């Protein structure tokens, strides 16, 4: 498998590994990348100046590239955030959103808007 496009860029930031599920009211904030081995539940918040990768279900609020890094991405096995922020962009799922794709997804800023695509790009497992 080719290296996914998302990682075809320079990212020299430190990375923290969070080996638990973040429950409502809990938060992780880090100057660098955050990898979570668990879920992020509604009411929990992850903030990182770099990328956020969730090896589980992302249901809470996530802010990647906090501080203005437009090239930061959010990747999750299941991307269902309450709210998703990258640098200065904010998005939320539409109110009538019922789609529930059973695969990993990546969120990133393209042409000034947050877009969500399958991860790895085009890949179906």
């Amino acid at each position, binding site marked *: 498998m080719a290296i996914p496009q998302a990682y075809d860029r320079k990212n020299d930031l430190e990375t923290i590994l969070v080996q638990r599920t973040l429950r*409502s*009211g*809990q*938060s992780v904030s880090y100057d660098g990348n955050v990898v979570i081995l668990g879920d992020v539940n*509604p*009411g*929990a*918040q992850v903030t990182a100046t770099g990328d956020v990768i969730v090896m589980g279900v992302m249901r809470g609020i996530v802010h990647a590239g906090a501080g203005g890094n437009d090239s930061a991405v959010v990747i999750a096995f299941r991307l269902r955030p*309450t*709210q998703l922020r990258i640098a200065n962009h*904010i998005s*939320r*799922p539409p*109110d009538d959103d019922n789609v529930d794709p059973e695969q990993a997804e990546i969120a990133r800023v393209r042409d000034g808007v947050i877009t969500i695509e399958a991860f790895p790009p085009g890949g179906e497992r």
Partner: protein
Amino acid sequence: MSEVIVVTSGKGGVGKTTTTANIGAGLAMLGHKVVLVDADTGLRNLDVVLGLENRIVYDLTNVINEECRLRQAIIKDKRFEGLHLLPTAQTKDKSAVTPESMQKLCTELKEMFDYVIIDCPAGIEQGFMSAVAAAGKAIVVTTPEVAAVRDADRVIGLLESKVGIKDPKLIVNRLRTKMVRSGNMMSVDDIVDILAIDLLGVIPEDEKIVISTNRGETVVDNEHSLSGKAFKNIVWRILGEPVPLLDLQDEGGFLSRLRKFIGLSN
């Protein structure tokens, strides 16, 4: 002319948040400018009940710490024109808000809105004290259970002595008429006897409340639900209209209404 009303109960789970949301929506439906303030820092729910969770960027604690302007933290409701929410933080605790900061906040809110309705946390500690600090009026919610009535009594005592809120009003929530009739549940009269405050309204137990709450909707705008009508009447009473109490007897549906009509049951 604007009013600051706190919705409180002492005991948790009796319906403070649902009551706050429905009264707020009801007042907004009648053309009033309303802001609902969630004072339950760390265990906020009002945003979820209103279906506005995903719109929150700033909250009450950010306003208090002067990290944003008040107008930036206020969220417009998606259904009712005139209804607004000031959420609180989920990742902080009750110490993030003091009675003084709440008073300052409400002074500003009073200039922007006709009604400021504060959803109080359960308990009688710091969170309660901050939530009630700025209120001029109080609504005490209870259910027909001994424990809830006991806690409501404690809260009414605190409101009158420590906070200085005179004559709080009572809402009895989740009443089951059938159980009251069979003698297995406290009646509204029993509760009013103990608490000795004015009754603002009675909300019957209603599946529709569970459904609407889970969907992030209110029930006061539902013409077909008894609980919705009960909330609407409460709203009218808050506005000073003398609306008679609802007849909750028809919860049994068509058959019992028919029986009542032909005189088989009282």
